[in-house]
């Protein structure tokens, strides 16, 4: 089979685990915790006070610079504005709202302007005001990304690879409601004028692919690319390489090779923002893993605590070892299950002890498997060695900052070295040396 990007691995995907339940249930949290920072950039300032009544979709935080607003995902009363645990592991200032269960919403203003008359300013303004960020995990403000891509992009890519094991949130979106995604793609096509518009999906999503093939005749200009499943295909640089053969230069953004990549959930959110006037207040979240009783996908209000979702999915196994926000390859392990779902949370993964887990005394055999699987063509075995030795000069020579932390090397390592962990340390060392 032709390799479309360098390296990569074939982990056990376990996707069927969360797709047996085909209905997307909703969940009604008693309280939601809305962090004022859910994107890359500057945090929002709260626009509400404790005791204030808020409506569903009401803007409750906004700010200047690289910042998008946050909205109430329920109607009810603000009961606290205080630092709360966040999926990043730090505490983040959050607005806590008690849900009155009425879903009294702010009035949304739909926009039915035909595509060809839709103007750029309206689209970008609506994307910003809806608080849209990259929903695949990066959480980069959507309007800023779209703005920087204007005039510089010949290829617009919708990313539905979802290459991480277990996660089926994007898959569920495409199987249940693919139209908003395609209409969101049309809207950005209108704004960015790309020559090529691609929806990229891995070949392990048969049902979604079938559904899309049926719909695409109604959306001329959108191309469906079915890629051979391999991790980390959905990583931005790897996906661009797989689809266009272009390599993003070290330290540069996709726009430098005339590409813009958005997650399919982001496209659906863009459609809702531009056409329906709805802010981003909910998303699909996969709750899965061997340690959860009833793995499935939910439509979740932003701010819903992890523990509510876990309870709704039948609860945790007694021997649960880890609860992860995101995928098993790149996600963050959580210690406090009161953390809320944020805009970029695509999955809550509950895992038992991994039989193949870390060794007590990890030893590098120099087998070189890490070099073969690295999609960025790095040499993990030497990077590991020089992080341990604290050699910043060698780490710079080995381009440790190029590492995308996909974990392919650590997954493959027979000596079970803590590679990614060490590379984060190494990157920190290099960055510190560079700022001196």
């Amino acid at each position, binding site marked *: 089979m032709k390799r479309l990007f360098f390296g990569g691995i074939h982990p056990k995907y376990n996707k069927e685990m969360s797709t047996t339940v085909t209905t997307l249930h909703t969940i009604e949290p008693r309280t939601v915790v809305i962090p004022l920072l859910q994107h890359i950039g500057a945090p929002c300032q709260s626009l509400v006070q404790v005791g204030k009544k808020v409506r569903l979709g009401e803007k409750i935080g906004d700010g200047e610079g690289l910042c998008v607003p946050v909205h109430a995902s329920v109607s009810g009363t603000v009961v606290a504005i205080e630092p709360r645990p966040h999926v990043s592991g730090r505490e983040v200032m959050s607005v806590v709202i008690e849900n009155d269960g009425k879903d009294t919403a702010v009035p949304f203003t739909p926009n039915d302007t035909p595509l060809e008359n839709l103007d750029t300013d309206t689209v970008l303004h609506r994307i910003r005001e809806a608080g849209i960020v990259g929903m695949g995990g990066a959480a980069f403000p959507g309007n800023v990304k779209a703005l920087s891509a204007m005039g510089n992009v010949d290829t617009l890519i919708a990313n539905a690879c979802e290459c991480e094991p277990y996660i089926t949130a994007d898959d569920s979106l495409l199987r249940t409601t693919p139209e908003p995604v395609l209409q969101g793609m049309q809207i950005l096509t209108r704004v960015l004028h790309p020559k090529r518009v691609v929806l990229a999906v891995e070949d392990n999503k048969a049902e979604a692919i079938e559904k899309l093939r049926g719909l695409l005749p109604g959306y001329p200009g959108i191309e469906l690319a079915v890629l051979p499943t391999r991790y980390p295909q959905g990583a931005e640089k790897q996906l661009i390489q797989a689809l266009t053969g272009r390599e993003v*230069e070290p330290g540069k953004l996709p726009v430098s090779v005339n590409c813009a990549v958005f997650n399919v959930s982001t496209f659906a959110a863009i459609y809702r923002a531009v056409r329906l006037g709805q802010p981003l207040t909910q998303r699909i979240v996969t709750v899965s893993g061997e340690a959860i009783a009833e793995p499935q996908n939910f439509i979740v209000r932003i701010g819903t605590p992890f523990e509510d979702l876990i309870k709704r999915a039948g609860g945790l196994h007694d021997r649960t070892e880890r*609860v992860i926000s995101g995928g098993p390859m790149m996600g963050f392990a959580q210690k406090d299950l009161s953390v809320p779902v944020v805009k970029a949370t695509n999955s809550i993964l509950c895992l038992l002890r991994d039989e193949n887990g870390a060794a007590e*005394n990890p*030893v590098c055999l120099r087998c070189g498997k890490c*070099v073969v699987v690295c999609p960025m063509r790095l040499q993990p075995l030497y990077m590991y060695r020089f992080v341990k030795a604290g050699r910043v000069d060698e780490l710079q020579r*080995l381009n440790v900052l*190029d590492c995308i932390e996909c974990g392919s090397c650590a997954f493959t390592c027979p000596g079970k070295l803590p590679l*990614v962990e060490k590379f*984060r340390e190494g990157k920190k060392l290099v960055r510190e040396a560079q700022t001196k």
Partner: protein
Amino acid sequence: MKLTVASSPHIRGNFRTNRIMLDVVLALLPALCVGVGTLGYRSLLVVGVCIACCVASEWLYSLITRSRNTIVDGSAVVTGLLLAMTLPSTVPLWLAAVGSVFAIVIVKALCGGLGQNIFNPALAARAFMLLIYPVGMVRYSSIAVDGVTSATPLHHMVMPGLPEESLWDLFLGKCPGSIGEISALMLLLGGGYLVWRKVISIRIPAAYLGTVAVLTLIFSRAGAPWEWMLYSLLSGGVMLGAIFMATDYATSPATSLGQIIYGIGCGALTVIFRYFGLFPEGVTYAILIMNAFVWLIDRYTPPRRFGTKKGGKAK
């Protein structure tokens, strides 16, 4: 419930050190069987002594230095087996024992242990044994008759001339030689298994054997160059060396280009030592010398950096 907070990735593959070692042992078994069949049951005794002494010295070393016990990873078994494969079946057992201890303690453990040693333990031990007691290392039992020694096909080729055994005999292993080296067919089979199991890549063996083939074809020492080339490939320790010794993880390069350069270097040195050296065989020293260059080769053959053209500069 106590939740573990650790770095990603949270799942790992099932590729393990002891599985790799088991695969290497399995891959060596066919060649070993032919060795025992052709050279007699004393071969098994040699194998037993080597493995037992390697495992025992690994255990004793970890006990004395209070370091962690590494017997479970299986690498000592592999070292012992590999060393035995390079020895004649007539080797004195005390010499085999001394060689085994040398391989584990001096070459491996004192260099930092698994994955840290610069030289291939089995080959370094073999070189050491040749140094301290050469007589014990060059008497080869002839086919199926224990106790009678004869020259190996490779000895004939120093004359120079072609040996009396047919190419087919050499391929199947009906000839005198070291325990593990005589059947090219079985070694290739084992190598194929390791490539299939992704334990080794084909780059080093292919570059090694390819270089030997090309050089012996061009600089043939017999009237029939193709025949000379095939005899050169099938006799002596080239197959064993190229497939099982030069591919040792710790002592070979990790980069793709580096592996090819290393294989070519091993092949070229093997031919040079065979043609111009004092001993008929050159595999051991060829690989040991290339071992010394592994880190240097890796350093100067990094993969092309993602997003850059050759040379590491941005486009």
